[in-house]
């Protein structure tokens, strides 16, 4: 035990030496006591050391500190040996210790990387000096736990959600500031002592929440009508859970609530708007059908009987009268086309279930077949190919391609029309182009051509209802794509449109 390295040497070894030279029972007893003291100090599980306050040299360290330092620091400067610092620490040298008081503080040791609670005081050293004795307990884990607790408390205090903590009977123990402001209390103290059930408009609802919490699941989530202190109400989304003690027995509940009144009202508004929109859409579909049917019937009467009249009076009519009859017939025919186009336009988007794999090459072939007469009459050349198979509404794809190709043929200049249909694959879409060599479109009308009833040319030159491109846009938008045109007068037009698919999606997705 007499280990000179750890500095108690002076006292104990002198005592032993003296004990051996003067063999008295009292000296022997004193020797025993010193041995016990040494045994206790050396095996003490926390740091103890002694420093000369005048020189800052280490006089004694217990075994645990020596082991931590990896060697004896006796005679070294305490702040160097223990802390790795180059000057004395202010707290070791403060006046309280020098005046004989006991000084306690907490300190993070940079060399050992631990946090300690330190107690310093002056003691008498066997050689008559007054020396500084320090006792240090490692509180690193305790500090970390405190820090974590502090953080959790911060969350509780600053949470936007209102949180209440109640005992097993449902009596509120504590609440956070959000709770105080949401329910309109003065402070947290005002809320404590209230029953959780008093927070809600319908006590029965609150009681079923409590029952669920007390049950085996121990949690509940749902919406409750909450009642503020002033009697006003709000819709609260509440998530509550049972709190269990160390022994697993319930020690209370926590209820976290959010005011979702505004959200619920917005949702209800949205739903009402959607309902109204659906109704209006249905009405519109119904209207379009009725209008087209009921409008066509009188039209047929006008056309048929004008014609019949013309036949009956054959030979009795002069040229003017025949012209009038022609005008009447022409008007009726245009009206009929208008009605039919309007009907097709109103129908786009009404068949969600019709999305199938469509071979656009085959479809182009069909379109060309149905445009055969027009192609022949205008000596048009329509080319195209390499088109994909994609998921689409087939009828609407026919309408789309037919309208675009037909426009390409129709709006031709002096040269015979040339129309080319092509497609390239992009990362998430098929990009189609329909290119013609026709009269082109002035820049200011590039957007306008897609508006319904918007026509840029006289009916005499280019007959039509002004619905075709509007229908194309409706078809494309319904399929989640885009349509636009690049053109300049005299240089033809390129109609671009995209349809979802391409490299990212296979047709059967």
């Amino acid at each position, binding site marked *: 035990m007499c280990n000179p390295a750890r500095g108690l040497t002076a006292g104990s070894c002198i005592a032993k030496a003296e004990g051996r030279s003067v063999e008295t029972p009292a000296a022997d007893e004193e020797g025993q006591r010193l041995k016990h003291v040494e045994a206790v100090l050396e095996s003490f599980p926390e740091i103890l050391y002694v420093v000369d306050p005048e020189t800052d040299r280490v006089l004694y360290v217990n075994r645990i500190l020596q082991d931590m330092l990896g060697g004896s620091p006796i005679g070294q400067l305490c702040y160097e040996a223990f802390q790795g610092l180059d000057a004395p620490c202010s707290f070791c040298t403060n006046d309280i210790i020098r005046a004989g008081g006991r000084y306690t503080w907490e300190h993070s040791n940079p060399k050992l990387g631990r946090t300690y609670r330190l107690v310093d005081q002056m003691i008498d050293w066997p050689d008559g000096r007054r020396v500084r004795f320090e006792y240090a307990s490692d509180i690193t884990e305790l500090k970390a736990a405190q820090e974590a607790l502090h953080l959790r408390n911060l969350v509780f205090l600053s949470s936007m959600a209102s949180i209440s903590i109640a005992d097993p009977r449902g009596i509120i123990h504590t609440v956070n500031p959000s709770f105080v402001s949401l329910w309109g209390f003065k402070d947290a103290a005002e809320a404590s002592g209230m029953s959780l059930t008093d927070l809600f408009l319908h006590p029965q609802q609150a009681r079923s929440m409590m029952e669920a919490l007390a049950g085996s699941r121990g949690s509940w989530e749902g919406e409750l009508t909450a009642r503020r202190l002033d009697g006003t109400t709000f819709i609260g989304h509440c998530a509550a859970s049972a709190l269990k003690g160390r022994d697993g027995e319930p020690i209370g509940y926590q209820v976290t609530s959010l005011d979702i009144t505004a959200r619920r009202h917005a949702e209800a508004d949205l739903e009402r708007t959607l309902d109204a929109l659906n109704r209006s859409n249905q009405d519109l579909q119904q209207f379009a059908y009725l209008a*087209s*049917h009921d409008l*066509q019937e009188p039209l*047929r*009467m006008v056309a*048929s009987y004008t014609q*019949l009249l013309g*036949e009956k009076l054959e030979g009795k009519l002069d040229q003017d009268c025949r012209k009038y009859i022609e005008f009447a017939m022409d008007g*009726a*025919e245009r009206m009929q086309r208008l009605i039919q186009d309007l009907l097709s336009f109103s129908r786009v988007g009404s068949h969600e279930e019709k999305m199938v794999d469509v071979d656009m090459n085959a479809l182009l072939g069909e379109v060309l077949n149905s445009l055969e007469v027009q192609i022949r009459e205008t000596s048009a050349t329509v080319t195209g190919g390499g088109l994909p198979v994609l998921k689409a509404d087939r009828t609407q794809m026919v309408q789309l391609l037919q309208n675009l190709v037909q426009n390409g043929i129709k709006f031709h200049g002096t040269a015979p029309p040339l129309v080319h249909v092509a497609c390239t694959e992009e990362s998430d879409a098929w990009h189609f182009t329909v290119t013609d060599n026709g009269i082109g479109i002035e820049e200011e009308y590039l957007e306008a051509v897609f508006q319904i009833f918007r026509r840029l040319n006289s009916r005499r030159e280019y007959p039509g209802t002004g619905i075709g491109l509007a229908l194309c846009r409706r078809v494309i938008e319904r399929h989640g794509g885009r349509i636009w045109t690049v053109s300049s007068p005299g240089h033809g037009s390129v109609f671009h449109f995209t349809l979802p698919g391409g490299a990212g999606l296979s047709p059967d997705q």
Partner: protein
Amino acid sequence: MKEIGVVRPIEILLVEDNPGDVELARVALADSKVTNRLRVVEDGESALDYMHRRGRFSGAPRPDLVLLDLNLPKKDGREVLAELKSDPNLKRIPVVILTTSSAEEDILRTYNLHANCYITKPLDFKQFHKVIKSIENFWLSIVVLPAD
């Protein structure tokens, strides 16, 4: 049928509420090469009474061909068609739908109800006349129908 046609005129029932259309059909059928008698009822209920020879139609002859409009007062053409085509006695009689509607769902629905054919009334009279002629030609001259 052709043999019978010599003996008695072909009976055609036109179910149509528009007098203009009735007149057009009458004019178109007037110069028919087959002797025919056009009977007209103006709503679906009367059409069914006629077919079942009920009430004021108790003495009505059984039609050889029905020309049926779809949008009719009271019972509409779809209901009339459904009832005719589910009657074991009447379902043999050919029913030609003659309507203004060119709506896909009308076409599909009436064929599903076993309409014998669907024709959209053309806008001008010359076309209408042609249509009536071809109905007459096809159903009254070309097609062989059961004797009763």
